[in-house]
Structures are given as structure tokens and as C-alpha cells.
């Protein structure tokens, strides 16, 4: 198990370095000169040259890449003299456009994105699985058809449409919810809950629909397995048969997809955060893309990749406990 873990962690680190490299290469060759973006409107050729020097943009590709990697572990300084900026480890870069350390930008906003992701995940897992199990067990019933229609709608409606519609209905017309605010749980629990409720629901809707369909298909498949017939032949009751023999095989594969989806969302829910103006990683990314703030985009890409790699690892380890056939093979 330890050996397995070590190999997986090493390969995960390898993947992260590779993603780093590719992202870095894309920005190096494909995007417009970041120095121009930093310089702003009142810009001179001499000023651009200064910025290029301060950011190390004149250096060869590999040197820049190495500086970036080293900065993550050892920190780095940009520029010199009066312009000197120190970026302590872990340094994911420095946004000259906003004059902020990227790591600090991320750590300020991660709690917001994480709160949105966790709340939405709870909602969609609960709703998706309950709906999916009922549909699967009562295949082709009215329940099933109703839920299929519902999930079709949920999966088809674009999240920004749902977000705007909900906001208009609940905040503007009915006035039952306040406009979402970036308030912390400790400051005002009720306002916190009311602020996050719409983002949770909107983000969860599409996923819930998808998970309901997936669960339904898995339940239907599992119910046709021979071991279900054995369970009935033993004289077990229907509740025990469903709970013990059907649900575990049906739900275990969903863990894999959940790990990926959830990890991906920790990197920020771009649309939901933008529409509701929640100051999370998604909104930050959206602003960074508009302004071509490369250090920020780079860092967010890396962070999202990091979460997905870790999420995958967690799921794989979890899987060795959920599915005995995998368990034995891994040891």
C-alpha cells in the first residue's frame, strides 16, 4: 500500500510538472506581451523594456520556466531597486496588474470557492442519488418518467440562465433572499446561508441531473445481475436486497466521477461566481482572463490541475476500500 501510494504521488508530481510546462509554453509563445498589459495606457517603449526586465521576460524559455518552478519552493524577487518586489515561497507568481502576490489572491478566495463547491456537492449527490435510485428501482414507472424529464431539463438549462432566473425571482420579485454577499459563516450565519443558497442550487442542478441519470443506469444494470437473483432466492427482504446487494455495486463507480467533478470545482465555479458576483477563484479567473493577467491564469490552471490530481489519488485509494476486487490487486 505504501509503495503504491509513493508511486502514485510521484506520478502525480510528474503530471503537475508536465502541466506546468505546457501551460508555461502556451503563455510564452502564444499570448501577447504581458509587459504591454502591465504597462497600461500611459506607456513608453522604455517603460515596457523596464517591465520586461523586471519580469525576466528577456530570459530564454527554460530559464524562465526554471525560475517559476524554483519560486514555488524557494520564493523569488522581481525587479530591482525601488521596483523590487519580494514574493515568498510558495510563490506562484506576482500580478503586476493588481500589485498582488498570486498566492495571497488565491488563499483569500479559495474559501469562497470551496464553500460553493462543498455545498453544491452535498446537494447534487443527495438529490442525484435519491432521484436515480428511485427511477432505477421503479424503471418505466411514472416516477421514472417524471424524473427523466426533470433531469433532462436540469441537464439542458444553462447555469447562467438558471442563475439569472432564480436571482430575478427570489431576490427581485419575491424578495425572500438577499443579493449574495461574500460574508463569512462566523460573521452572520443566516446571511451566509442565504447568500450561498442560490450558488449551491444553480451549480448543483446540472450535476444532480447527470448523477441521477448515471445512478439510474447503474441501478438498472445491477438489478439485472445474477447475484440479485441469488439474494432473492435466499429469501432476503426487498429493503435488505436493495440496501446491501444493489446500492453498493451501483454507487461505487460514481465515486470516481464525483472525485473528478468535485476536485475540478475547487478551482472555481466560473459562471456561478461571475453571475452572483461571489469573489471566489472563478470570478478572479474571469477577471484575469479579461485583463490577460498571466501569472494569475497560470496559477489557477496549476491549482485546478493540482486538485484534480489529488482528487484522483484520493478516489483511487478510496476505491481499494470500496471494491474488494481492486483491493487485492493493489496490494
Amino acid at each position, binding site marked *: 500500500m505504501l509503495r503504491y501510494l509513493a508511486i502514485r504521488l510521484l506520478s502525480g508530481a510528474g503530471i503537475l510538472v508536465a502541466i506546468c510546462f505546457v501551460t508555461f509554453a502556451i503563455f510564452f509563445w502564444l499570448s501577447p506581451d504581458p509587459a504591454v498589459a502591465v504597462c497600461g495606457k500611459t506607456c513608453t517603449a522604455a517603460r515596457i523594456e523596464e517591465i520586461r526586465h523586471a519580469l525576466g521576460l528577456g530570459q530564454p524559455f527554460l530559464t524562465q520556466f526554471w525560475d517559476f518552478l524554483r519560486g514555488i519552493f524557494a520564493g523569488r524577487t522581481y525587479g530591482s531597486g525601488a521596483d523590487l518586489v519580494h514574493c515568498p515561497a510558495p510563490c506562484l507568481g506576482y500580478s503586476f496588474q493588481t500589485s498582488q502576490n498570486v498566492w495571497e489572491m488565491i488563499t483569500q478566495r479559495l474559501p469562497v470557492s470551496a464553500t460553493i463547491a462543498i455545498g453544491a456537492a452535498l446537494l447534487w449527490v443527495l438529490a442525484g442519488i435519491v432521484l436515480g435510485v428511485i427511477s432505477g428501482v421503479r424503471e418505466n414507472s411514472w416516477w421514472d418518467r417524471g424524473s427523466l424529464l426533470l433531469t433532462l431539463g436540469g441537464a439542458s438549462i444553462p447555469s447562467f440562465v438558471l442563475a439569472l432566473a432564480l436571482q430575478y425571482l427570489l431576490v427581485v420579485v419575491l424578495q425572500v433572499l438577499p443579493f449574495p454577499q461574500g460574508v463569512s459563516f462566523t460573521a452572520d450565519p443566516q446571511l451566509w446561508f442565504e447568500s450561498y443558497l442560490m450558488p449551491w442550487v444553480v451549480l448543483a442542478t446540472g450535476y444532480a441531473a447527470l448523477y441521477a441519470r448515471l445512478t439510474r443506469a447503474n441501478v438498472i444494470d445491477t438489478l439485472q445481475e445474477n*447475484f440479485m437473483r*441469488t439474494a432473492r*432466492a*435466499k*429469501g*432476503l427482504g426487498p429493503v435488505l436486497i436493495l440496501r446491501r446487494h444493489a446500492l453498493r*455495486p451501483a454507487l*461505487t463507480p460514481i465515486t470516481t466521477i464525483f472525485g473528478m467533478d468535485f476536485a475540478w470545482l475547487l478551482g472555481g465555479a466560473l459562471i456561478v461566481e461571475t453571475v452572483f458576483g461571489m469573489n471566489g477563484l472563478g470570478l478572479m479567473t474571469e477577471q484575469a482572463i479579461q485583463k490577460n493577467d498571466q501569472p494569475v491564469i497560470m496559477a489557477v490552471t496549476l491549482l485546478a490541475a493540482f486538485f484534480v490530481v489529488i482528487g484522483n489519488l484520493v478516489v483511487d485509494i478510496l476505491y481499494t476500500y470500496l*471494491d474488494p476486487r481492486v483491493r487485492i490487486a493493489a496490494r
Partner: protein
Amino acid sequence: MSPLLAVSNLTVSLPASGGYADVVRSSSFTIGEDDTLGIVGESGSGKSMTALAIMGLLPRGGRATGSVKFDGTEILGMADRDLRHLRGAVMSMIFQDPLSSLNPYYTVGLQIEEAYLAHRGGSRKAAHKLAAEAMAEVGIPDPAVRARHYPHQFSGGQRQRIMIAMALICEPKLLIADEPTTALDVTVQAQVLKLLARLQAQTGMGLLFITHDLAVISQVARRVVVMRDGEQLEYVTTEEAFCSPRHAYTRSLLEAIPRIDDALTEAP
């Protein structure tokens, strides 16, 4: 005294395109205690559906008419919640493919003990001990350890032994064995047949043995039902089926059994 199991005019229909199709038509036979009846026929002849109808385990939408009496009580059309108390308790069934018939997510010990707990209750611990004993009974070495293993960690023959242990844990009066040896190697096949014969001698249970293999029938059954396309062609003693088959189909089944002297005469 009524026989253990009396099936008369059993007709089974399954949903098919545009209505129902009969997969078993007017089948009738009886099984007594310590008695073995074979049902033989090719795939799709309705032999498995006959067994599933007796157990009340027909696929969704399946219908059975006629009469199935167990110990004198009509069980055809009984509500599932009532029939449930008979399944695994007084009548049990084992299946063709033991690997897919066991749940891969649970230890075999748990799967045997839950069959006991469903009918007899008591503590998990006591049931677990009984499960290990049942595994020893069917010839699984080191049962206390093996009970904590998962189905994929056993060989095909052992899996079928485990299925047998599970089916017999409540000492049923009737065991339905649906092609129990078809998926096994020939040597393992013989071991499982011997095991079934020994357990039957010990418990005096009735055995309904379904197979497509007449050679196996000759080893286990006293009487045999020959089926084709849902039709019951013959219901005779095994001796009669082998020595004086009335139906042409039975003769062709007999001719399909490979014989050692065929090989001798035809080899160059």
C-alpha cells in the same frame, strides 16, 4: 400423503413483442423426499423458467399459471412477502454461473450467514460460525479464514460449493440445481455431483436437477423430464429414457452423448 413438490399444468409466459409468449406449456411432475428428478433439454427449452416459476423468481413481467404445491400448499401466485419465507428456508436454488451469482462486494461468509439470519435470526456471530461450518461441510479447507474472503478469490468449483453451502444452510426440503456443473471442469463437475449426492443422503432433501447433459442425468436422477421449446416431451424413469426412449428427440439427445467406443472405432 402428498409429495414434497407437485407441479401440474404449469405454463409460464414472458412478455414478448406484442404480448406474451409461452416458454413452458403444461408441464407436470412430482418430486418426493430423498428423490431426484432431472429436467433435461437444450438452451431455451424452458427448463430454467420452470425452476424460476417454482421459486417465484420469474423475470419482471413473467406469468405462471397452473399449480405448484409444496408440501400440499399451493405456492403459485402466493404474494412475494409470503413466498420469501419459503425461499432459502424450505426450498433453495443454486445457479449455473457461481461467480456472477455471488455478490463481488461481500465476503462469502457474510453471504452465507445472511441466508441463515433471514430465516432463523439470532446473532451475527452465531450465524458466522454456522457459515464457516457449512463451508467445512461442503469441503472448503480452512473455512474460518476462507469465510472472510471474497468470491473472486475462489476457484470455480469452490464457488459452486459455497453456493451449495448457502442454499443448504437452513436445511431446506427441496434443492433446485439449475445447471450447477455446466460452468465447471469435468473433474470438478464429478466432485460437485458427489457432494450433492452425499448431502442429499445426509438430509433426505428432494432434488430437482436441471441440465442439458443427459450423461449427468444418468448419474444423479431417478426420473427425468425431457423438454423442448417449452413442451414436456417425456416424463419417465431415467432407465426408460436411456433404454427405450419413446420420443425421437430423446433419442437424438442420447445420440449426442459422446461415447468412448465411438472414439475407438473412428480413430485411425
